[in-house]
Each structure stands twice: as structure tokens, then as C-alpha cells.
């Protein structure tokens, strides 16, 4: 059974943070998460985060939206009930373009946001662990998950040594599934 304990190290500067992360990683300690008040430049490289697949989701959803919209308009105008509007052809492609475009964007945008929220475990009422409330203000936090309690002292030390101004042991009450 894995424990759900964490050790957090607090920093006050993003440059120091990056430096500390590198040092921690050099020491072979896996960083569970980093909490920052803003997207720190270069952090994903250091943490070797994979590039998000959201763009692909957006493309697919957009394509579906566009194709659906174009198909629907064509179906209505040529099959369901072909009506003569001002002598325009039933299959009046130029007229379908604006709506096709808008639907493409709409589908892509909604799917992106929904995909982002689901993937990140965010949403109305989502309750994720907040290790330190200052991380949304001006503090930077390195979170290390303790898989083996024997490691905790070492981690404590390492965090302090790389310049963390506060190092804490956190036992969250809820399972942290989406960190």
C-alpha cells in the first residue's frame, strides 16, 4: 500500500526553483509536482513534461464539427427539403462556409476546454489538494511524494540543502488523484 504522504519545499523565486529542481533530480529524487503562481518558463523542460495532446484533440473535434456542419447543411438543402431561395442552387457551397467554419471553431474550442478540464481533474467543485495557499500568490513549491517512509529524512535534507525556505511534511486528508 502506497502512502499518501508528501514533503514540500517552498521557494520564493522561480530561478531558484528551477535550479533546485535540477539539483533534486540530480540526486535521483522524483519530483511529484511543482506548484507555482504562474507558468514558470522552462519548468516543463526541467520536469520533462510531455507535450500535451490537446492540439490533436482540438483538431479532431474541429474536423468533426466542420464536417458535421457541412454535411448537415448540404443534407437539409439537397435532401431533406430543397427550397429555392432567390434562385440559389440547392447545394450552395459558398453559403455553407461561414457556418462550417464557426462550427469547426466551436467544436474545437469546447473540446479543448473540456479536454483540458477532464485531463487536469479540474471543474466546478473539484477539490484538489492545496499544499500551501501561498503558491497561488508568490510562493513556489516542490512536492515530493513519499513512497517509502525511510526516504523522508533524506528528502527533507535535500530540499533544505537546495535552498527551500520551508520544508514541510504534508498528510492530505483526501486522496490526491489529480495532482
Amino acid at each position: 500500500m502506497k502512502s499518501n504522504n508528501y514533503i514540500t519545499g517552498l521557494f520564493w523565486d522561480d530561478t531558484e526553483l528551477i535550479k533546485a529542481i535540477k539539483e533534486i533530480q540530480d540526486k535521483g529524487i522524483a519530483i511529484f509536482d511543482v506548484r507555482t503562481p504562474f507558468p514558470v518558463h522552462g519548468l516543463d523542460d526541467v520536469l520533462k513534461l510531455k507535450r500535451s495532446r490537446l492540439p490533436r484533440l482540438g483538431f479532431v473535434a474541429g474536423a468533426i464539427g466542420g464536417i458535421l456542419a457541412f454535411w448537415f447543411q448540404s443534407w437539409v438543402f439537397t435532401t431533406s427539403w430543397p427550397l429555392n431561395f432567390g434562385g440559389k442552387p440547392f447545394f450552395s457551397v459558398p453559403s455553407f462556409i461561414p457556418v462550417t467554419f464557426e462550427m469547426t471553431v466551436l467544436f474545437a474550442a469546447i473540446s479543448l476546454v473540456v479536454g483540458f478540464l477532464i485531463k487536469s481533474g479540474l471543474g466546478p467543485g473539484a477539490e484538489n489538494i492545496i499544499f500551501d495557499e501561498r503558491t497561488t500568490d508568490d510562493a513556489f513549491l516542490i512536492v515530493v511524494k513519499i513512497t517509502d517512509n525511510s526516504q523522508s529524512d533524506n528528502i527533507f535534507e535535500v530540499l533544505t540543502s537546495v535552498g527551500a525556505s520551508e520544508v514541510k511534511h504534508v498528510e492530505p486528508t483526501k486522496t490526491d488523484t489529480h495532482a
Partner: protein
Amino acid sequence: MKKYWKSIEEYEDGVKDDHAHLPNKIQASEALKASRRDFLKYFGFSVASAAVLASCERPVKKAIPLLIQPEEIRPGIASYYASTFYVGSEAVPILVKVRDGRPIKIEGNESSVMTRGGTSAQVQASLLGLYDESRPKNPSFNKEEITWDKANADVKEALDNLPADKTMVLLTATVISPSQKALIQKLKTKYPNLKQVTLDPYSYSGLREAYSDIVGEAIIPTFRFDKAELIVSFGADFLGTWLLPTVFTHQYVQNRKLDNGQKKLSKHIHFEGFMSLTGSNADERFVIKPSEEGKYVLSLYNEVAKSQGLPTLDKGGFESAVKEVAQQLLNAKSASLVVSGSNDKNVQLLVAGINTMLGAHGSTIDLNQDINLYQGNDSALEQLLQSCKQGSVGALICLESNPAYNMPDAGSFKEAIEKVGLTVNITAQNDETSSLCKYVLPASHFLESWGDAEAVSGMLSLTQPVIRPIYNTRDVNQILLNLLGEDISSYDYLHQHWQKNIIPQSTDSNPFISAWKVTLSAGLLSVTMDKKPKSILNTNLSSAASKVSSDKNTDGLELIAYQSVPVGDGKMANNPWLQELPDPVSRVCWDNYFSVSPTLADEKGWKQGDVISISNIELPVFVQPGNHHQVISVALGYGRTMEGPKPEVIGKDVKPLFVSKGTGVKYHTAIADIKNTGRTYELATTQSHHSMEGRAIVRETSLSEYLKDPASGNEMHAEIEKLHTSLYDKHEYKGHHWAMFIDLNSCTGCNACVVACNVENNVPVVGRNEVRRSHEMHWLRIDRYYTQAPNDPSSLRVVRQPVMCQHCDNAPCENVCPVAATTHSSEGINQMAYNRCIGTRYCNNNCPYKVRRFNWYDYNGADSIPYNRKDPAGMSTDLKRLVLNPDVTVRAKGVIEKCSFCIQRIQEKKLDAKTAGEPLRDGAIQTACQQGCPAKAITFGDMNDEKSVVSKMMKDPRRYHLLEELHTLPSVAYLTKVRNIEEKLNAEPEHKTHS
């Protein structure tokens, strides 16, 4: 078409034949092929008609359904009854369309040789008078309602007991009914001291007196504009209001059409002081002061006489001005016709003299056929006033004459009538006279009456009721019969009278079947006349000439009174359809006004809407190009104070300005007293810009150019046609493809079509204030433009163009409707689904012709919001709603509406053809505007039918489409206007050409 099942049973049994419940007629094998939509229509018809019948206004006394349905009544299917329109001015044979017991439309009677089915705006609108709630509903005595029995008994008793030294006067409108004349004769026999005096709302006394001098009888001969190659009119508005305008329009356009290879046009020269409808149609127009009119006539007489070597009369003073006219008259000889609208006997004598010299009498003027209208005599009226004032009149019975308004000197009449002991007003309207009379005997509307008419001698027509009297009224014959004490119904009386006196004279009566029934059904009868032929007796015109030449010329401003085309003599002044009908010249409605020329307006510093006062009558100024610069014109027929649901007085009665003693009524006068009031008044106009701005909207040419090249003036059409490119193919119209042609040469602008359209299509009346806000709802309008060379008012010309939805095959309006409320039918009709319309008005913005109309308010109560109805004209009362055409949806607030090509008529005739199993005959479908047009300027048909008239017209080089360069492909086409003049009209219109 997909079939939908509407119940489980149906689903299980398969979709049933939808037509099982239909009348047998529809169940014919043809009908089995009908679609579900047709079923819904039939079903809708029967439900709707049931509802209509159930809600009929009549008190239900015998609530027993018809066990055996009368053969001629079929719910949802209209019947037509022949009748005659006559309310004191012109008489027009009509057919009345009755749907489910309600008269809902008046059409012209096509069997009439005089009109060939033509109508006028007034004829069309007269229908509404039937549903007028302000009509007197019961007989009354001193404004207390009494029964007919009592009224009859009392009046009869009073008449019987009238002292012998007192005369009794029957003051009638002109009676053209033979049966009524006979009754009056009987009355005269019964009461020897009864005197009949005729009062016309507009006097033609001078004309009759002139002919009285010439032929010995005070007749008005018939004028044959169809036989005239040259028409010279001195102020006679024969296309608008003079005598028989509907008949004359029909005659006039016979020589103005260029179809069927006709290469000749009659020529029309017009002299007048203000811009009249007829003047605006003239080829040449001379603007003269009314006081000079007689001298112009005299000058013309002299010129004609001089050229023919006949003795001339006193100098008129305008000989040189009319020299050319005289020359043209001499060229045309007996094919010319000179008419005058003057009420001056002397002028009419001179006109008759010219006609005599030219040989027009007997050619374009038929002395042996009289026009029986306007039998009034001005001096008789003056005598009547005198004798009333002297107290020698003991009883005055007004019969549809409304002297309190119609008397030339209505003010004196109101004093005079106080001296009369017994006063009776027999009237169908709650008119001004009723309040002055002791007894009011309510007459029925002519659509509720039995009667007959002989407007032109020998041409008889019948009037028959098409609905039971709505109120407790009786027709005039019945009232007279009652007064005579004869116990006979007016129907029986009429029948007997005709059987005895008229049918035997008939030239075409068939002895084998009941001639009466045939006549009644046809509504018309011609009889031979056994009068002896009339001829010119007296040709001495010197006294007339000396009187005319001695008339003083006035230097100052002159005022002309005229009858406007919509309102006329004011008889139907409380008819909202007519009040909202824009004047064909000024395009102003809901008011009369002082029209002044732009020159005069500039000189006086007046702007349109400035209220000025002439002899204490205050009216706004309207700037009217084409008026003489020293002439102010004003319409009669306004300022009626009759009571009604809307007691508002519309305009001012200007008759008091024209009171003259001893010389008969003159409709022009010198202006003595004119003041600015400093106030302004906004006139309700439907057109505020009067120039075509160099655009090829109305295309015209001259006859000489036309003869050289029939496409002259229309060169643009071929060029544009050549350049028509499109980025997509045209839709195919496999069945019908409807088209409408409007011959601009035939259209005189009389506006009959506009009212016909309003009546047919339930077009709401919105009232003066809404018209001011450009909210008028007319589906069809007649645009009027002036063209004029710069700084040359004499070159002013008027062109007109009826514009309705053009039913474009590439309609810009249809493209943009977001909800598909307006689409193109498979027969080329631009159709509106009112139910679907959400009212974005996008279509209207996009319509280059601006023919779409938006329901700005709840004009007729079709809205579901309570208390928001905007019906200033009172058109949506329960009674007036009965006039609505059940085949046409009443539109709710917030939807767009427009001309539908009378889709209901198209569908009806298609269905008729289908049930008869015959192909649809070309011409079977007539749109309302087409049918109402007295000039037959509108043609409707199927351009896919190669033999149809419109298909032939498609090849006419005069054909063009409005704004055709936009490639909207309208289904409405126009034929160029060709004027009978020499000059070249198209000095390269400002348009572009492509290589």
C-alpha cells in the same frame, strides 16, 4: 411527398386515402391524385367557413341547419351577383363576390360594353360602406328611434295633411333608376304640389344648359374617347372624375395601346390650371389660369373657324397660343373631340361649337345617347333655397341628396331648412342633413337594395341585394312605395316594372326563357330607344362669345376646386380605404390641402406643410409641380362632419369659398384674402421624392421614335440582357411560371388596382399618422415621377409606374431570410409564410424595389397581446372584419407581407381546372389589380405556356424589367411608355453600357 400517419389506426391500416371526407366533386378521379396539402386546404376551407357561418352577425332566429342545401350555396366557394354601383356620381356595372353570405369584393361586370369589367377606386372601396357601423340603423323622429310602421304612417299623414299652399319638395340626388323615376312620378301624381329638385354634389349644370341651347334638351351627350384620334380637353378630368371616368378610361386607352400591331396612338392635348390626373396623362399640356379658360376656348374656336372660312367670334386673345392645336384639330377633323370641364354654359357652348365645326357631333359625340348622370340644375337649387326661406315649402324630403353638405351654399341651406315644417331625410349614411331633419328614414346600402340604373340611355343595369340588410333599413324603392302606401315589396315592384316597361323594349330578350331571370343574372340589358334623333338646332354663339370675352382677367391668385380621384365628391369620405389611398398626382392621403406651384411657393416663401388661410379656411400648402404659378388648387369632398365611429373631420370643406349667386356654381374663383398662419401641419404622403434621378426606371419614348424602332427608349434592355451572366444556373420551372405585364402606356394612374388589391388581400389601413411615418401597408403602389428640363417648368411631364412585388426569380429578399419564411415557389412566385416570419425586416432592406411591408403594430387584432391594437381607422371592428377575404391570412404584428400575385386566385383557378379535368385556360386567372383595372393595363399569365398572352408580350420590344441590371430576374415586366409627340425623349438616359 412523404405521407405521415396521424394515428395508430392509420399506421396499422396504412395511410388512408385522405380524401374520403371530401365532397363528391373533389372525389373525382382527378382529385384522388391530389396531395395531402390539398386535403388540408379543403379541410381548412370547410372548417373556416363553418366558423364564419357560425359567427355571422345576424341574430339567429331559426337555428335549424339547412336540410337541403341550396344548390348555389357551397361553403367556401364564392358566388358572384351582378349589380350596379351608383352612389350619386358615376354608375358602374359590377359583380359582387359573396363568400359564405358575406359580400367581400366588388369586380367590374365584364359583360358591360361600357366598362368591360373596369372599376374605379371608389367602386372597389364602396363595399366597405356596407359594413359601416355609423349608418343609421333605425327610422327616427327627432333622433328618437321609431318603428318603420310609425315612421311611414307619420310621414304619410304629415304629407297628406300638408296645406295646399305649401309645396312639398323631393330633393333627390340624380335619379338614374327607371323604376325609381316611376315611383317619383307616382308620388307627384299623388301629391300634385310635390316638386322634385335634383342636387348633385358636383354641378354639370352648365354643360346641360349649353346643350339645352343647342339641341333643345338639357342633355349630356355621350362622349366617345375611343373614337377620337385627337382629344382636346379644357380642364375636363375625364380619366379621374369627369362624368364617367371608368368608362372614359376604358375608351381612352383603346387608342393608347400598341399591342397587336397597332401603330397609332390618339393624341391628347390638355389645358388646365392645376395638375390633374388627366392632365398628367396628356401628350401636350397647356397650363392656363382658370379664368382664361373660356378665352382659350374662344381663341381656339376662332382659329378653327378662320381656317375653315367660317365666321369668327369676338377675340379670345390667345389665338396664337392655340394656333397649332387648331391645326391639329383640323387635321383630325371629325375624329377629334373637344371637351371642357367648365360649369359655365357659355364656355360649353363654344366647345360644342368647335365640335360642331369639326363634325365631332355624330362622330365622337353621340347626341342620341344621353348620359343621365348629373341632372341637377344650379338655378333650381337657388330657387329652392329662396322658397324655403320664404316659408313656402311645407315639406322637404331629402332623398340621398345630403343638402347640408352638397348644396353649393350649404350654409344658407341650414338656415333655410329651419323654415320648413316637415323634414325627412332618406339616406343610407348618417349624413350632415340627418341632424337637421325631423324624420330620418334609413335607406339600405346599394348592396342591400333592389334597384336599377340607366346611366347612359338605353344601357340598363340592375341592382340586387347580396346580403339581407344588416340594420333595420329599407331600400329606397321600398321607402317610396311605403310613402305611396303601396303594399308591395320592392323586389316585386322592380320585377313588375321591368316586366312591363323595360324587357319588352329589349333588343336581345329571349322570349323562351324568363327574360327577367336572365337579365337579373347578367345584370345588364340594352334597350332600343324610340326617341327621335336629336340634332344641332342653334349655332349662334355670339352672345356666348361676347360674355366669355368680356370676362375680366384677374391678375392675382386664383383658386380651383377639384374632385380628388380617391375621395371624389366626398360621398364616401368616411371610407378608410379611400382616405388612405394616395392621390394619384400628389400622393398625399388623409387630407386636402392647397396645392401651389413651386414658383408660387418660392415667391411666397411657403414650404410644404405651412398652413395658410384663404378666406378663413386654413389648410396646409402642398407644393405641386404643374400648377399654374398663379393658381392654388384644393380638393372638394373633405371636411365632412357626418358622425361615425371616428368622428374626426378629415380636411376642410372648401365649398363655401365657391359660393356664387345667380351664375351657377363656378369651381374657380379669385383669391381675395390670403394669410399665413405661421403654423405647420404634416401632410401624410407616400412619396417624398419625385425625380427619377436620371435612372432608367420608367422608360419612355415618343411615337415617332417608336415607329422607327419599337425598342426605342428601351435600348438598355437588350444590352443588359446580353450581359446577363450568373455564377449559377437558373432553376427550372417545369409547370407554370407566372408572369405579369404592365403596360405603362395604358396605365392612367387611377388607383383602382390599389384598392382592389387592398380589398382582396386584407391589407390593413393604418391611418394618417402612420402614413406620415411611412408605415403605409399597400402592397401595390403607383409611383409617380416628374421629368422636366432644367429651369423649364413647361416641359414638365409625369410618368407613373405601378410597383408591386416583382416576384424575382433571383430574389435578393429570399436569400437573406434566416428562417426561410420567404422562398420561391416551383411556379416562380416569391412566397411569404407569415406563420414563419419573425420580422427581422432583412428581406425588406434587401428588396431593391421596396415593396415589402412590415406590420409595425397590431393593426387588426391578429396579435395575442391584449390592448395593443393600433387601428385608428376603425377597420378591425367586428362588423368591418366581415369584409375580410377568408382566403387570405390576416397578418399579425411583426411580420412582413407583400404582394402574392393573388396566390389564392391562382390556386382557385388551378383547382377549378383540375376538377374540370381541363388545362388551365390562359386568362382564367386574374389578379385583383388586373381585374379591377379599367384600362386593362395589367396582364397576368403563364410564360411557360407558349400561347399565352404574356408569352407573346415577352417578345415585345417594349418589354423591360425594373432594375434589370441587377439580374434579379423579375416576373413582373413593364412595357415602355410611348407618348404621341414628335420630339426625341431619350437624350441618352444616364446609364451605362458595356462592351
